[in-house]
């Protein structure tokens, strides 16, 4: 690239001064965080599988085929069949959709509500902060699964209610983390300047505070997706999540998987592996993102 100077000369910019391309940024991220990159690869594969499930799955995941019950893995059924004769591979492929839908929806909504609450709590401080934090304390006193079970008991089962059940316990967790970052930002001079200029609270929160706590927010989302997938699987396993015949990994571990654990172990093993891989992938990627965004860790 060439630029003209005010002296009439032309200066050639070297490659070193060019903005790094996205590809090279990803390459650097992968070199610095090989495990995180592996996690990211798992997530990409999972997203692709979910998007193109119709083309990847060889069978209809809900179609019963009683003449093929409990078939072990073979060329025809790569991961075997379950007690209804359904193809386990096809159900795992479609199950990725359920996992990602529940995972992303609940973590995004939960983290977003948490972001707004956390920033508002830090910005207004005083009694509002006190009350909000005590309410958050109450919610955080319950383990994730207990909280989700309570919500399911109120709203009932089904994919939509599972998303709500997982979203609610995420809100206080994200709010607490975001608040701690927002407390520091609130004391910075540009926030004082915004106040002195008479900007509204909404404008200060939305334009000046929230953009500056995006790093912990994104890290929380990534961490939540893995937790949400695990929670969805747990609820489905307990019979409180999505229901048959919907393809869902946790549901695949329930019922027949338990009953036929000895004679047809593939019914339980492969969905178990899928859950582990997905949670592992999101955890590694979340950790790597945290390291990347945190300058203290990056310098180590």
């Amino acid at each position, binding site marked *: 690239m060439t630029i003209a100077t005010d002296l009439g000369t032309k200066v050639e910019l070297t490659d070193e001064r060019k903005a790094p391309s996205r590809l090279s940024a990803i390459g650097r991220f992968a070199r610095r965080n090989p495990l995180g990159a592996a996690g990211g690869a798992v997530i990409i594969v999972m997203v692709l599988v979910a998007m193109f499930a119709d083309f990847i799955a060889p069978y209809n995941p*809900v*179609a*019963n085929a*009683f003449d093929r*019950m409990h078939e072990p893995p073979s060329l025809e059924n790569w991961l075997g069949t379950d*007690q*209804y004769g359904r193809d386990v591979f096809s159900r795992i492929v479609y199950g990725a959709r359920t996992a990602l839908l529940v995972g992303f929806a609940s973590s995004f909504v939960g983290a977003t509500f948490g972001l707004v609450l956390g920033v508002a709590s830090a910005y207004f401080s005083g009694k509002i902060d006190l009350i909000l934090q005590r309410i958050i304390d109450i919610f955080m006193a319950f383990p994730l699964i207990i909280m989700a079970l309570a919500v399911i008991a109120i709203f*009932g*089962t*089904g994919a939509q209610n599972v998303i709500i059940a997982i979203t609610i316990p995420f809100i206080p967790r994200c709010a607490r983390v975001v608040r701690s970052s927002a407390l520091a930002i609130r004391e910075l001079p540009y926030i004082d300047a915004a106040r002195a200029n008479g900007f509204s609270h909404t404008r200060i929160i939305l334009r000046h505070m929230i953009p500056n706590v995006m790093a912990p927010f994104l890290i929380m989302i990534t961490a939540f997706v893995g937790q949400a997938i695990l929670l969805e699987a747990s609820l489905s396993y307990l*019979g409180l999540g999505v*229901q*048959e*015949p919907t393809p869902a990994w946790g549901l695949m571990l329930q*019922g*027949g998987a*338990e*009953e*036929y*654990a*000895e*004679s047809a172990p593939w019914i339980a093993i492969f969905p178990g592996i899928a859950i582990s891989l997905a949670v592992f992938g999101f955890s590694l990627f979340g950790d790597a993102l945290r390291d990347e965004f945190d300058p203290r860790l990056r310098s180590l």
Partner: protein
Amino acid sequence: MNLAKYLRAASIIAVGAAVAIGFSGAPGQAAPKKGGILNFVVPDEPPSWDGHRETTFALIHPFAPFYSLLIKVNPENPSSPTDFVCDLCTEMPTPTDGGRTYTFKIKQGVKFHDGTPLTAQDVVASYKKIIFPPEGTTSARVAYFVMVDSVSAPDDHTVVFKLKYPSGAFIPALATPYNFIYSKAKLDQDIRWYEKNVMGSGPFKFAGREAGASVRGERNNDYHVPGQPYLDGFEAIFSNKQAVRVQAIRGDRAAIEFRGFPPKSRDDLVEALGGDITVQESDWNCVLLFTPNHKKKPFDDVRVRRALTLAVDRWDGSKSLSRIAIVKAVGGVVFPGHPLAATKAELEQIPGFWPDINKSRAEAKRLLQEAGVSDLTFVLSNRAVDQPYTIVGTWLIDQWRQIGVTVEQKMEPTGPFYARLRSQDFDVTMDFNCQSVVNPLLDIGKFLSTDIGNESYGGYTDRDLDKIFEAMNRAPEEAEQRKLMRQFEKRVLDEQAHSFVTLWWNRIIPHRSYVKGWKISPSHYLNQDLANVWLDK
């Protein structure tokens, strides 16, 4: 059918059932030993503790041992639909007044668990609650006693039932194991007291309950049958996961589950425990139904309802599902094998039982198109119990998928499931007709109009159907009853398409061989007071 003919027909069934039952052991041959605690697993918890109101094994298994009945099935011969013995009465009565009056003498000296005496007044108060439930209460067995005109106690030791007409169905109805005898004083105090409390005169006293975990009973030393019960007590352990229940028996945490396991679990237990496990099997007077809500569109249209049954391949389902679930026999509204049941040829005339499933499904699609709902979508309400509800529900959804209908399944625990049934807040629901004594004339009361059949949840009123039921119960001859039964069946399953039968159940009870004295019957409700059960340890 007159009583003699009924008894003859029933005896044929009893012999058939006995032959069909595969006993791999010989329960109850040695002299009973006293002592020990029987641990058994129960797949669910009851919505309430009132036997008159409930219809589920979840109530009978943990709570029947706390109560006495007026009469009961013979615990030594529980498969017989005609062998009844006295529990609180002194002898089985001979009807008088042309079969319209039954007089029972009540045992003297019987005490409730709180020490108060049990008299004929308590029996009458209990039966009045069952037969003529006061406003604000629910009785699941009103339809069983349509022939009863009055019940009274001329003195403290005599109970008299007066019937509107002679009926061979009356005595089996009396022996229904849900007819717990309650304390009149408690009922007078609060007619719904027994929904949340226990106080009977049965072989065991209530010793405690831990919500979601267990119910415990301890021996009633004042029990009115000398020498019984043999056990020191029992613990009913709740677990809705079948794998857990099987493992409980395998690990000897529990000795038995009285409801039934699928063939695979039986095979696993036998393979693992060998001689330590005994298996009892029987046909089962229990069937899963699916019922559309007639008050909801588009299920108010008989074409839509008929399409739902036409999509279901019961003949193939029987072969497939019997390998993984506790269902097996294809039948109509009557317990298969009973003289009043439809033959295979008769069944094949009914939509949903046609031998050619492709023709059947083509007709289903045509009906849906004609009704303007070829892309029908609905929610199937189902009970969150593994066997056989989840499996049959999932199978049905696949059957409907094949005519282009999309169904979402909503599974709920027993309490909320019943609440939804009773409030008729569903599109289509899984439903069941599980009866105790095989007594088709009354067992089909399930299908009557909603305002008559207290267990009928479809939200329909069909007076023509009710009339056929009434005529059948008054008909003296079996041939006439059979003819009327076919009309009844055709109206329910075809002409009006009110509610639909899926597959009849098959009962398999693998239990620890040290459990003695308990014998299987074609119902998981019968013979559950545990008075004659003992442990050979």
